[in-house]
């Protein structure tokens, strides 16, 4: 699996201090659309390996991070560049839309 399992303890290192942009997938196990969107996120992780880091944040296990970024709906995908949120996508979206958003940042 190319995606990084994100936690409060590795958030700073993996997301905020990353050299390359990071796509964070905020999800939870009981959220149907999150689970179904996971394969698309995995595909993106493979296709953009080296250019984009992809991480997954389980909002059940890491609620402080979810609150910190104002997450009130999942799935939410956030794109980080140099430690800042540069874009966010709320809800399940077509792969193409996600790719378009990523192209703007990469």
């Amino acid at each position, binding site marked *: 699996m190319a995606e990084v399992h994100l936690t409060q303890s590795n958030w700073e290192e993996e997301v905020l201090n990353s050299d390359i942009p990071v796509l964070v997938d905020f999800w939870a196990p*009981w959220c*149907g659309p999150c689970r179904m*969107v996971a394969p698309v996120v995995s595909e993106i992780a493979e296709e953009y390996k080296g250019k984009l880091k992809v991480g997954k944040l389980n909002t059940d296990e890491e609620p402080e991070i979810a609150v910190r970024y104002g997450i*009130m*709906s*999942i799935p939410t995908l956030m794109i980080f560049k140099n430690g800042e949120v540069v874009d966010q996508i709320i809800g399940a979206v077509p792969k193409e839309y996600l790719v378009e958003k990523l192209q703007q940042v990469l």
Partner: protein
Amino acid sequence: MYDVIIIGGGPAGLTAGLYAARGGLKTLICEEKVFGGQIVMSYEVDNYPGFPKGISGMDLMDNFIKQAEKFGVEMNYDGVKSIEDEGKTKIVTLSNGTKLTTKTVIIAAGASPNKLNCPGEKKFTGKGVSYCATCDGAFFKGKKVAVVGGGDSAIEEALYLANLASKVYIIHRRDQLRAVKILQDRAFSNKKIEFIFNHVVKEIQGDKFVNGILIENVQTKELTRLEVDGVFIYVGITPNTKFVEDLIKLDENGYIIVNDKMETNIPGIYAAGDIRVTPLRQVLTAAADGAIAASCAQIYIETQINT
């Protein structure tokens, strides 16, 4: 060239895929967003036969997907922009521009949840406005929420939310619910649920997140502000037929007209599931439609070979 291209990966599309592939046809399912379709948002499906203990929409669809994969169905995450009818073959153009050739097409693109189209709805989507209680309900634990709608979905999701929220208002524009009696009874007897009939939502308000809604009495036009942290919208669905409206015959509500073989007005093109004109929209009926469409597509392909 494919034998069957299926547009949509919900229960109709997945079942059509399963039947087609199992029948030896070269089959592809194109799903733009979420395999499993609308039902993956349902916490519990208790009326799908074969599951007396009930099953979550997600788990049920996981099984549909595994089963289709077992028979060798190809699946991709591509939307479909258009279909062209070339007689013996059809051209399916994906959103990324790729053109695929196929002998038959099964349109199983389902329907999308309707919006209220009121001020604040778009602004606060994901910030208090939601169309999926199972996805977002947990973020409203101990808070007050409003559910807008009066059908099965609205009541089911309100009951789900009542386990988490401190209070659930159900706001419906009429004075009677459309939901089935058993759901209505459960909602009426739930102490956390309060019904507000004859009202519509005029505005969703807040600063960074939702903090209230403005509702209007449809008869007196009186406005009331309700303090809520979340608004869950379940006001019906619209069929995803825009991409075929110039090619396929639709009824006045935009649903695809089919006969009992799931045939549309174009030979070789079929429709299945929520997207077609039908008296009942359930996972069960969608799956049945998919099976019929795939079987009829197979017979059509075989007769084409013999002519």
